[in-house]
């Protein structure tokens, strides 16, 4: 086996398999949760649930890291906030707004969008890697995180870290030859796609559940989520 064939495998059939596994797995989890049963909320609201939900997302995405009353929480969890925030920013920039990844989306969706200049995504990718390392150190040292982190969460970290670091190495031709690094990157991505429905990275989907519930609960009581 040469690297070119390995690359073909991980960009080709195995990627397809991973993607389909991902689609099937996520649908499975979604349907399983949806069909667990939802009782209608019969309690009359004081405020608007819709407004609450909207505020919930706004806060979840934009305001959370900057509001003053989080200071206390922030002070005790600076690494989580900074690491987590930067990681997700990097993730968005790299996965959605870097040229190579946009071309992946384009090939899958049939349309593309403007991307960020390479130096920007490149630096953000580095930031993402650093953020992940910060998060790892945090997870290894913070008493609460030590307590609640079981094997699958450590695996999560590795599986998320690998595409980042292989992608970065590949872009900069670090160490191995390009197609070797590209193969490793695709291998890591494929594994990630398969792992997502099995682990907690799927929170990107259930985020919409909990965030909506949170907003609706606050909204119906007419308080800020």
């Amino acid at each position: 086996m040469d690297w070119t064939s390995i690359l073909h495998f991980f960009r080709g059939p195995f990627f397809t398999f991973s993607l389909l596994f991902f689609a099937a797995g996520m649908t499975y989890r979604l349907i399983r949760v949806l069909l667990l049963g939802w009782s209608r909320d019969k309690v009359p609201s004081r405020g608007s649930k819709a407004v609450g939900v909207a505020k919930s997302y706004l806060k979840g995405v934009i305001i959370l890291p900057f509001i003053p009353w989080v200071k206390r929480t922030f002070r005790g969890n600076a690494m989580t906030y900074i690491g987590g925030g930067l990681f997700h920013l990097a993730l968005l920039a790299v996965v959605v707004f870097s040229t190579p990844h946009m071309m992946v989306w384009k090939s899958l969706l049939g349309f593309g969008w403007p991307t960020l200049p390479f130096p920007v995504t490149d630096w953000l990718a580095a930031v993402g890697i650093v953020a992940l390392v910060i998060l790892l150190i945090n997870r290894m040292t913070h008493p609460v995180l030590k307590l609640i982190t079981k094997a699958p969460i450590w695996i999560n970290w590795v599986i998320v870290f690998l595409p980042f670091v292989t992608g970065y190495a590949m872009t900069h031709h670090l160490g191995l030859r390009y197609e070797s690094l590209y193969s490793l990157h695709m291998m890591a991505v494929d594994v990630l796609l398969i792992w997502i429905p099995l682990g907690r990275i799927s929170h990107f989907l259930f985020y919409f559940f909990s965030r909506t519930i949170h907003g609706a609960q606050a909204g119906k009581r007419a308080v800020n989520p």
Partner: protein
Amino acid sequence: MNKQSAMNAYIKEIGGWVAGQLEACTRCGLCASACHFYQVTDDPEYAPVWKVSLLGQAYQQRFTFLGRLRQALGLGRPITDEALEKWSKLVFEGCTVCNKCAMVCPMGIQLGPLIHDVRAGLTAAGLVPADLHAATVKQDAIGSPLGVTDDAWQERIDWIAEEWEVDIPKDKKGVDTLVVFSSIEIMKFPENLVAVAKIMAKASESWTVSSKGREVVNFAFFEGDRELTKKFLNRVFGAARELGVKRIMISECGHAYDAFRWTAGNIMEVPKGIEVTHVVRVVYDFWKAGRIRLKKGAYDDGTITFHDSCKIQRRGGHIKEPRELLAWLAPRAFKEMSPAREQSLCCGGGGGVISIKEADALRLAVFGMKVEQMNKIGAQAVCMVCSNCRLQFTEGVAHYKSGIQVRGLTDMVFKAME
């Protein structure tokens, strides 16, 4: 059979609402820093995520394919009796179900209600702390967790009416409002009754208390015992139906307001057309409508602050009413603690914790944070709209030998009436 009962309760409890949120957790651990129990103890086991993990474990093992597979292969981590006992201490003594954690959770998971579900399973397994359960049993048998019998109650009401020269109508049919007090108020804060009676009188509101639905608190609700919760709620709803009132006014009690206003409708049939409201809202409405007039700046000396009760403010929604009242009553003296409003810090006595003797040390330790908060703004007085908080504050202030005065807002309103 503890395990089985707990597991059955969890299996019954877990629906999409629970599962969707359990699935969303990323194990970031931020909820820990929101929890006052974790903050004072630095014990990671008080992290809300850890408290909920019992439910999560049940979910993983029974509702997911891999979990079931692991169970079938005998690889799953079983939930042991020891674990249940440990969790009983964690979620009954080390959690006030204040839901502050949900406010910092990046995913917005409603950890409070989920811990409530954890409690339900432990209750089904018979693992409720003895003090708490004793109160529940008392409420079931006698009608009051404090053991106030019907006769005692009648006597006490009559005594208050006589002593403070107020009219407290009992079981009066055809009135608009049924007011329900808690035993704590009746036995420890009678001025609350007096204040309500005076305000009602001033506002010319027709009202009554009921001997059948005389207790607003609901210890079964603390336990998460759904059937018993309904039974207790039904006593009041039954009375309201019988008396033909238009609304039920919950007095200064937090969890009761949560149970009546936000929970009852979803777990049982509630009488239609009867509004459930809280005394702070009623008083506020009277004031706004001009049915009572308050002396502006009545408390405008020193520094007075307001404690947001988790069940009435964060989980109840009555955030602006007390503030507007205070802005009138103490325009200069009123000062906010930080954090406040939806983000406020729990007093540490809610969720039934205050009734558990073994939790006293922890509960008072937690209150230290509240003292610190108040000291920071130099508060000389603090008011609130929850008797449970008030009891905790009273004990806590005494414990910390702080001179801060603890007051009920209704009482303050009454005293500022012109």
